[in-house]
């Protein structure tokens, strides 16, 4: 079959038997990212800011260069890019700071498609501020539609906390329509782009989104780093949550003055190595082009889907997925039992509720299997998934699981 041009950049595929279908949890890293983290630890290894010697200056330069690259990657300004520990921290920062201005008169719109990291921070804001948490009714496929969004949008809506791409169903939310509507009603939109950043060209200006968060490790980058984009005037208006070194201008015994955004949100020593490595991940994605990645992964996803759905005993929950995710189960086999089978056959996929219990409950299941594809996957990987699924059905029936 066709040759995968990216695969050789990822050292883990030196193990030819490794079928990695869990990129929605974390992507593998290309050698350039690994080298860059290594370069920091091997040749620099020092703290940034306030260092006048060469290594500190160079580390600071690489750190700030990453900010510029992230900004240009999503069409923002560097001042609008806050580095965090991950998408989760980024989303919590918005809720803990901006969200705490809400009152019992206000409403927050969210959805059952959300990852826990997108919904729980706002559930907590609702519980603390007594603002009302409102869920967009999902359509029969489990999608967010513009119509359903309109049905819950009111003058009281202050926040819309919504996923860009669902990490279970792979649906893309209609943000192009939702965001302007929300703005018409004076609401701010907080987008969870953890699954979008690795797959879609994000343009925060075109979207006119207020806040947007994603993680490095899902987009070929290191663990321990995430990004919060926030419109400059919003970030400027917000109080920092974590206080400490480097985020202040002036510290007095009883009062202190913070730096401007984004620095006021970056307290203490940041994940320097991971941030420096993230630049290389972005460089890689820019070079290969997100549209091509998406094209490639969707073709493989559909190829796998077409065959999987024919297998008697396999149930698929997201036949119309917009992205490279297949959520499925073997009928009457708990996904943890099934996942052990796949793992034995060196097919790495994930079983569970994928940190998205609300959609799992909506599907009225206990948990499911998730196969997710990315640029380094091949049609052979899809074949491997399908064959293993067939064999698994047979195996589980043979040992006594009901058909």
């Amino acid at each position, binding site marked *: 079959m066709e040759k995968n041009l990216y695969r050789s950049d990822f050292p883990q595929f030196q193990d030819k038997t490794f079928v990695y279908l869990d990129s929605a949890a974390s992507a593998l890293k290309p050698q350039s990212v690994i080298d860059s983290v290594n370069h920091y630890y091997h040749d620099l290894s020092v703290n940034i800011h306030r260092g006048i010697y060469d290594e500190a200056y160079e580390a600071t330069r690489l750190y700030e260069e990453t900010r510029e690259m992230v900004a240009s990657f999503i069409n923002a300004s560097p001042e609008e890019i806050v580095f965090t520990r991950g998408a989760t921290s980024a989303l919590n920062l918005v809720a803990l700071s901006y969200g705490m201005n809400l009152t019992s008169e206000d409403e927050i719109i969210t959805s059952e498609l959300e990852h826990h990291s997108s919904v729980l921070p706002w559930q907590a804001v609702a519980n603390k501020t007594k603002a009302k948490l409102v869920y967009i009714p999902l359509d029969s496929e489990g999608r967010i539609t513009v119509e359903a969004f309109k049905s819950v949008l009111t003058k009281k809506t202050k926040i819309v906390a919504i996923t860009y791409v669902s990490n279970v169903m792979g649906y893309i939310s209609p943000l192009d329509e939702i965001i302007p509507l929300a703005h018409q009603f004076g609401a701010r939109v907080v987008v969870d782009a953890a699954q979008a950043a690795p797959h879609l060209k994000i343009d925060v200006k075109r979207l006119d989104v207020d806040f947007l968060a994603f993680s490095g490790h899902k987009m070929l980058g290191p663990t321990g780093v995430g990004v919060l984009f926030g419109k400059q005037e919003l970030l400027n208006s917000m109080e920092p949550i974590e206080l400490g070194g480097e985020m202040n201008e002036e510290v007095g015994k009883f009062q202190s003055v913070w730096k401007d955004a984004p620095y006021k949100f970056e307290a203490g020593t940041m994940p320097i190595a991971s941030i420096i490595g993230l630049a290389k991940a972005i460089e890689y994605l820019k070079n290969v082009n997100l549209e091509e990645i998406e094209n490639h992964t969707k073709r493989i996803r559909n190829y796998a889907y077409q065959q999987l759905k024919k297998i008697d005993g396999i149930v698929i929950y997201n036949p119309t997925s917009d992205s490279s995710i297949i959520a499925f189960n073997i009928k009457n086999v*708990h996904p943890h039992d099934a996942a052990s089978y796949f793992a034995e056959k060196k097919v790495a996929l994930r079983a569970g509720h994928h940190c998205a219990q609300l959609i799992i409950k909506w599907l009225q299941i206990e948990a499911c299997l998730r196969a997710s594809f990315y640029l380094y996957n091949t049609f052979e990987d899809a074949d491997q998934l399908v064959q293993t699924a067939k064999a698994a059905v047979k195996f589980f029936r043979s040992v006594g699981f009901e058909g």
Partner: protein
Amino acid sequence: MEKLDNLYREIIMEHYKNPRNKGLIDDPSYVTVHIKNPSCGDDITVQSKFVNGIVKDCRHDGHGCSICCSSASVMTETVIDKTTEEANKIADNYLLMVTNKSFDETIDLEEAAVYSGVRQFPARVKCASIAWQAFVETLKKGA
């Protein structure tokens, strides 16, 4: 597929399909312990009734994979009518066995011995353990 055959043994499947002592009882003389395996969502409640140092009854309920649910059923059958001391010893040794630690092989684990296959699946050890851990907790709380 030897390894997997070793895991999904007949006895295990039999208990999975026909669980014994399943369903909880609303009776204050039972000690109830609820354990969730946050790493996979298995969720088991165990109830034990201790009378004069004997495990008079043991019940379970919950949901999870076949290994988790079946082991709860096997566990109840194994401990009922044992002295709490015997039951405790079996539970301790069972938990040592599935975690691949050295254990006292002279102690008869009865049907629970079929879970030895789980040692080859480190990611599933937790599934085979939580019902027993819950039982040990009921012992600590009530025996």
